[in-house]
């Protein structure tokens, strides 16, 4: 059947970049499987416990780039205890022992230790890229090892990690011979930075295109850095505070005018709003703006800034911009594709907060919108229906009403019809997060219409098992389902056990599922790991089967129960 030599096949496969395409190709026949496997360089593993490092290494000897995800998504919200797992150490050890020439490692929600970083830095001569998102367990000492030992390091990208900052010296560990940096992001570090080292590092990195500073870098240093790196494309300021009448500020204004390449702007972790005009000249070319950590910029100043950003495609902002501000966004940023509005005061009732009107305005002005994360005080069905009609291109739609069971304030009805409209109109919807008062009806809509849905997050919704059943039966492409505080029980859990092998994982916490239900599921499906997280010492191994399970996390796996589970995690 194969008329081409392997090299030709390989060359053809080179054009396949997406993981899904390559996975599909490897299923065609054993020849293609073989060719694909030897030529594969990038692998994505969505759940680090679904497969073992050894199997990975055996199958893909040419591996260069690995992406791993560890803890379940709800770990971001403190729902998963500290020592649950997700350690990268076994992976790095296995890779180090093998002949794999790892060049890139991207981790999300994993536990990374300084030892792991040290081992990583010493084991792979060509290591180029380290991206850590939402990870924990390491300190700046680990970063020092990376800096010192990875001679060809190109990217060091730390996003929203919990890092113990021992301050300052890691940056000086980059040797003078290191000139290959293209991307450096240490915005999440909380401690001091050796500013002189930073300036020298930037000066000897002619390829630097992305630089995100932390709070410890003052405006004077920012100005000096920009002088050295006028070709920056992505800039995250540190502390943006100064006297607008000063010499330094004026120098900054002139320097910024030379930075014509900046397309992404973020940071402003501390900000003096009167200094903002210096960045207006670059606003015109911005395609991405992240002010979600800039609590120091008030609504009116935000609006003034946004008015300059006509080409914006991605905007992350705090809700202090208000509905009025969102109307300005809608009229100015007609190319907008992704919008995230975060709450500036999650537990208070702010009068500046955004409501459904802001979202409707956005939907009118920004028809290209495809990704939304919106925290608001209230939402109405009518607004959601309007949004659905105006923006049929949603791929990700995440709505979070701060009061989790709030109905439509106008009609006092549940928000079922609103979300129903969203799923019916947006045929390409892949990710959905629900909130507000919701009954089983919304799940019926989701099951019926959300054919492309891959990830669903549900909280405080539904009336009965039917809700979950609609989703499990209807959403054929569902990969991740996470549920908290919903009345779904064993009936829903056990109705279609085969479904879970088609999904990556299922999380259910504070639902009606009992220990018996979980045990039954585990018995019947050996290729699933059904884990119970038991945080209170009440439940013993011979606990009563009728007892409700507080947190259950199940996922498909090829390697059976994991061996690093802590005491409070039971694998049934």
């Amino acid at each position: 059947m194969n008329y081409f030599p392997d090299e030709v096949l390989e060359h053809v496969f080179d054009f396949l970049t997406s993981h899904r395409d390559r996975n599909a190709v490897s299923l065609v026949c054993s020849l293609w499987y073989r060719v694909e496997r030897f030529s594969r360089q990038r692998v994505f593993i969505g759940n680090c416990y679904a497969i073992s490092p050894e199997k990975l290494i055996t199958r893909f000897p040419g591996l260069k780039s690995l992406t791993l995800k560890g803890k379940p998504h709800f770990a971001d919200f403190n729902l998963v205890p500290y020592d649950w797992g997700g350690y990268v150490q076994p992976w790095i050890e296995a890779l180090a022992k093998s002949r794999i020439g790892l060049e890139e490692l991207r981790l999300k929600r994993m536990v990374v230790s300084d030892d792991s970083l040290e081992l990583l830095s010493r084991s792979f001569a060509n290591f180029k890229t380290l991206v850590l998102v939402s990870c924990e367990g390491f300190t700046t000492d680990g970063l020092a090892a990376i800096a010192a030992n990875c001679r060809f390091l190109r990217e060091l990208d730390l996003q929203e990690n919990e890092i113990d900052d021992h301050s300052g010296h890691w940056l000086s560990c980059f040797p003078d011979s290191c000139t290959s940096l293209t991307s450096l992001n240490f915005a999440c570090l909380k401690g001091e930075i050796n500013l002189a080292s930073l300036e020298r590092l930037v000066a000897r990195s002619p390829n630097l295109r992305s630089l995100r500073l932390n709070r410890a870098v003052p405006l004077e240093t920012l100005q000096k850095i920009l002088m050295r790196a006028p070709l920056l494309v992505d800039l995250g300021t540190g502390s943006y505070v100064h006297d607008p009448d000063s010499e330094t500020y004026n120098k900054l204004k002139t320097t910024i005018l030379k930075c014509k390449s900046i397309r992404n702007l973020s940071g402003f972790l501390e900000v003096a709003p009167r200094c903002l005009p210096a960045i207006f000249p670059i606003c015109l070319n911005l395609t991405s703006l992240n002010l979600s950590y800039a609590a120091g910029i008030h609504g009116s100043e935000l609006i003034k800034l946004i008015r300059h950003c006509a080409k914006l495609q991605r905007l992350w902002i705090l809700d202090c911009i208000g509905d009025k501000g969102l109307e300005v966004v809608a009229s100015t940023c007609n190319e907008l594709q992704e919008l995230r509005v975060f709450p500036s005061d999650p537990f208070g009732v702010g009068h500046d907060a955004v409501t459904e009107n802001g979202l409707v305005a956005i939907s009118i002005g920004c028809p290209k919108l495809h990704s939304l994360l919106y925290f608001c005080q209230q939402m109405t069905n009518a607004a959601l229906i309007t949004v659905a009609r105006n923006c049929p291109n949603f791929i990700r739609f995440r709505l979070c009403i701060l009061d989790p069971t709030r109905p439509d304030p106008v009609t006092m009805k549940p928000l079922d019809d609103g979300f129903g409209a969203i799923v019916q109109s947006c045929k390409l919807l892949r990710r959905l997060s629900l909130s507000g008062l919701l009954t089983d009806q919304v799940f019926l809509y989701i099951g019926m219409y959300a054919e492309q849905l891959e990830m669903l997050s549900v909280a405080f919704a539904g009336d009965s098992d039917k809700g979950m059943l609609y989703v499990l039966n209807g959403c054929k492409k569902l990969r991740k389902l996470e549920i908290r505080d919903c009345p779904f029980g064993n009936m829903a859990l056990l109705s279609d056990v085969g479904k879970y092998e088609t999904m990556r994982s299922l999380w259910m916490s504070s639902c009606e599922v009992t220990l018996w239900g979980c045990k039954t599921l585990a018995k019947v499906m050996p290729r699933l790991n059904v884990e119970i997280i038991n945080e209170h010492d009440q439940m013993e191994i011979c606990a009563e089967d009728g007892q409700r399970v507080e947190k259950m996390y199940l996922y498909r796996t090829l390697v059976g129960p994991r061996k690093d589970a802590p005491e409070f995690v039971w694998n049934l």
Partner: protein
Amino acid sequence: MSRKFEVGGGESARRTTGHLGPSTITPSTTSLQPTPPFPSLPFPSLFACLLLPYTLFSPPHYSKSLHSFFKLFFGSARNLTPYLALMDVTLGLLGGGGGSSRASTNESTVSKMEVVEQDFVGLSSEASSYPPVEAELELGLGLSLGGGGAAVKGKPFVWGECRRILTPKDFPSVVSHGSSVSSRFSDRATAVAAVTGTKRAADSVSQEGGSPPSASQVVGWPPIRAYRMNSLVNQTKSQRDEEDKQIGEKDESNDSSKKKIYRNTENTAKEKCHLGFVKVNMDGVPIGRKVDLNAHSCYATLAEMLEDMFFRSTTTVKSMGGEKEQVTKSPKLLDGSSEFVLTYEDKDGDWMLVGDVPWGMFLGSVRRLRIMKTSEANGLAPRFQERNERQRSKPI
């Protein structure tokens, strides 16, 4: 029509992805209540006609004959939405208007809906027995099932044991929820607030001075990443400090005061940078917790929260008909009357007793907390008794 469907699954079954064909005959359909806003979707009508009698008369759980009926007509079509065929769901609020050649009846739909729903519920397994081709690394699943690809897909459309619909008869001890669940869950917000708030206070950012909607006491809600939550809280604090300072210094000359403000803001911010959630571990307890120090303004509330967290073993909120046992093992952490003391690790890595220094200074240097056995902590406490006296006189 039968040409579209492979009888008996098999490898090609996996590749059949299309919908069942367009409809030619339009049977009467039903509409949902309340009517949804969008116009209805097309569906295969012939199939629907055939399906109708079966679904109307079949029992809630499946018989083998019904299985084979579906096998005959669907093979392995993955986009199986049979109940769509029976329902004309017009989401009427948007007023999509005509668009469809079918007439929707106004007859009451509740009973039909239920039947249809049950069928839809039951049909899941078949359609989901084929893992998606676009799996990430799950291809290993298909291939490692022993012999090339078709292992799972090659199975005839038979409901193996593991995919049998489990009916209520299989659940010996399940509690029938019925309507009681919805009422329980509508009270959930308040119930959760009342109990979970105390129990899980470590993980939730407790209310800061004033307005507590129930959201504030629910663990993990609103769903904001912990990192972002921490920095939010810190930023608010430092902003408040900046404003205070501005007010205090507005009489001074412009330049110097502004410089002072800016520098002070930076310092305060840096001081408080690492605040927010700090980890708390207790001797003998494997799981650590996290506390938000910014939510407290004095040692007393912090101690109280920790005592709730570690010393009160309560059952879950939703214990079925059971009593809540509130066993307080040892209440007071700060006054030395219990067998445990509260200690913290400071910036220099030393372990100190909590309560010695002023609260603000404590906030500035604490890195994490540990509830230690008193016997181990003796070396830390030269002025144990004096501190106890001071604590007792503090208002709680």
